[in-house]
């Protein structure tokens, strides 16, 4: 059955935006080509879109086909983010050759040799933030049914594959970001012993405004509790628990497989929490990445949360 809310099931939405952005970046590349071809022979081209930064990276290799007069070749096709020119043999960047201008950049040809092959890499920012969103369908598992080891699926798919095919070859999409909220709340809750929690509650009450007799009573209660397990180690334990959720540590509890790779993790933003302050994460947001191109229009990945390992480390904190 087709979703009655949509008149068509063919993904047309966003095609205009994708087409518009691609038209402008292709046009810019064509202009660069024409300009280069006036003095050089273009040997190869490549276009990559760096997704997280939304950057068009256009690279071309060229050979100087005639004797070059000392001049500045101007490339006025908008504000350029970075330009790098290097001889193919040494791959050492020629920093003196490039001058940045308000509306682009210039190549000072006096530093270039006839017959040498060069690699020119140019980066432009893609301003339309909806471009990637409209070109790629991203979907991830929101919850998992398993309790031992959680597996979250991730899927990336090109919505408009045809648009990536251009005269010079194919456009590549690199490092498409995916955020998966890995639930960790049950594990912390399960492993915090009641005795430790009771002690914390007493400490918490002591920080409040209470009467003298009540304060005395709480001190007595705390002194008694200090004789029990974890006495005096409460803040160290809290610190150790917090450390579990720093990216460097938590990274070891996740494994990203198949077409995706691990990039980073951060504390999840918990929408169900009405508390206006950051407490402890109920989830960790794990960022994974994948690439798509004309020959690989879809990718699927698996994020495995190694719950058992995290539980073992929590147990060590309380052992």
């Amino acid at each position: 059955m087709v979703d009655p809310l949509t008149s068509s099931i063919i993904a047309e939405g966003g095609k205009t935006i994708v087409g518009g952005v691609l038209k402008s970046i292709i046009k810019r590349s064509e202009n660069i080509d024409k300009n280069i071809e006036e003095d050089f022979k273009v040997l190869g081209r490549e276009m990559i879109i760096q997704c997280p930064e939304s950057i068009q990276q256009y690279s071309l290799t060229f050979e100087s086909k005639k004797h070059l007069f000392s001049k500045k070749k101007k490339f006025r096709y908008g504000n350029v983010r970075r330009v790098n020119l290097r001889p193919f043999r040494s791959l050492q960047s020629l920093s003196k050759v490039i001058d940045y201008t308000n509306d682009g950049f210039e190549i000072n040809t006096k530093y270039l040799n006839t017959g040498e092959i060069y690699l020119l890499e140019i980066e432009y920012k893609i301003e339309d933030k909806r471009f990637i969103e409209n070109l790629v369908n991203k979907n991830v598992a929101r919850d998992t049914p398993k309790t031992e080891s959680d597996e979250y699926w991730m899927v990336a798919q090109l919505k408009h594959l045809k648009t990536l095919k251009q005269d010079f070859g194919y456009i590549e999409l690199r490092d498409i970001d995916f955020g998966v909220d890995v639930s960790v709340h049950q594990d912390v809750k399960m492993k915090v012993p009641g005795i430790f929690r009771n002690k914390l509650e007493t400490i918490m009450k002591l920080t409040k405004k209470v009467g003298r007799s009540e304060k005395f009573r709480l001190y007595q209660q705390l002194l008694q509790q200090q004789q029990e397990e974890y006495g005096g180690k409460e803040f160290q334990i809290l610190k150790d628990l917090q450390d579990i959720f720093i990216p460097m540590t938590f990274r070891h509890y996740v494994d990203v497989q198949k077409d995706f790779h691990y990039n980073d993790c951060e504390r999840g933003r918990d929408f169900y929490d009405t508390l206006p302050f950051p407490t402890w994460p109920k989830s960790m947001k794990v960022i994974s990445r994948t690439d798509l191109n004309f020959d690989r229009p879809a990718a699927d990945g698996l994020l495995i949360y190694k719950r058992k390992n995290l539980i073992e480390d929590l147990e060590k904190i309380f052992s």
Partner: protein
Amino acid sequence: MTIGEIVFVPENSLQGQEISGHILWDREKKIILGIELPDGIRVKELYNVEKKGYSVDGQIITINKFEVNGYLGFTLLTSIYKESKIRNEIKFILESGTEKNVIKKTIELFRPDINLIKTPCQINIKVDENNKLSLDNRLLIENLGEGTGVINLEIDKKSELDKIDPAGIQEFSRKFWESANKQFESLKNQYQEYAELIDNFSQLNSGITQFDKHGMNKIKIIFKKLNRACEENNSFLEDFAGIIVSSYLKNISILTEVESFIAYLQSIHLGKMMLFDPVKVLKITTKTKILKAKLGITDLAYNKYDPIEFQEIQITANKECELPIHQLLSFIKKEKET
């Protein structure tokens, strides 16, 4: 070589969530592709299909014209089923000349299944000399499903008892928002494109009281936009996070780390259940008062479930006290998990 080389459909999903899948096959082979969907699953979108390249007959979709041969992507909409766990089969039929390949993929669709097992008509609270509360009765809740359930005690307008913030949190909350809102003004000037989003986030201060469609949609949209803004603009992320952290640190003296950890523990319950308002309290007096409320339920995909209605409860205490919501409810784990 078979026609269908790769067919991907997730093995499981929360019910009501969109799921995506794809099929990749030899680009040299022209195919006709049939997709047979089970009841409760609908097609939302197809990728790489020509405008008039498909037909639909009930639960069967047939596709014969692709923009580029060799690939089909799709997004499906799943329903909330009567059963909290159901296994469904999606059938893909790939035909190329005389070749025919049938691929079956099974998907397990799950959801939370929150049940109220016991509702007392009266709760008596005993406050001892240590101000520790003992309740002679509680609402007993169980999650029979495999999805995480988020539970909100939604108070009726006619109720004599209402949810309030406990004293310490109230002060912290007020000062935190005062400090954050002041800084949000300059953030709005700096990032004018996010001004409306910042205002909407700030309005969350007034709280979401009910898991109604409007409230859930509001939260969903605000946080979706906030996530997108943070992903696309790193400096906004840093400045926004900076305000939250500095407002928190300025007022940290009011709220200890210990307290925030306790609040965290109070909000989580074994058996995949979370409480929406973990630190809110009911102000109980020695005079019997009536609690008229229901349990609002949602899940991690913001699906809305029918609220669980329950009878009025008379609550009284031997001494005036603040009853944390989490103490009113008792959560039990499923037998097989214990």
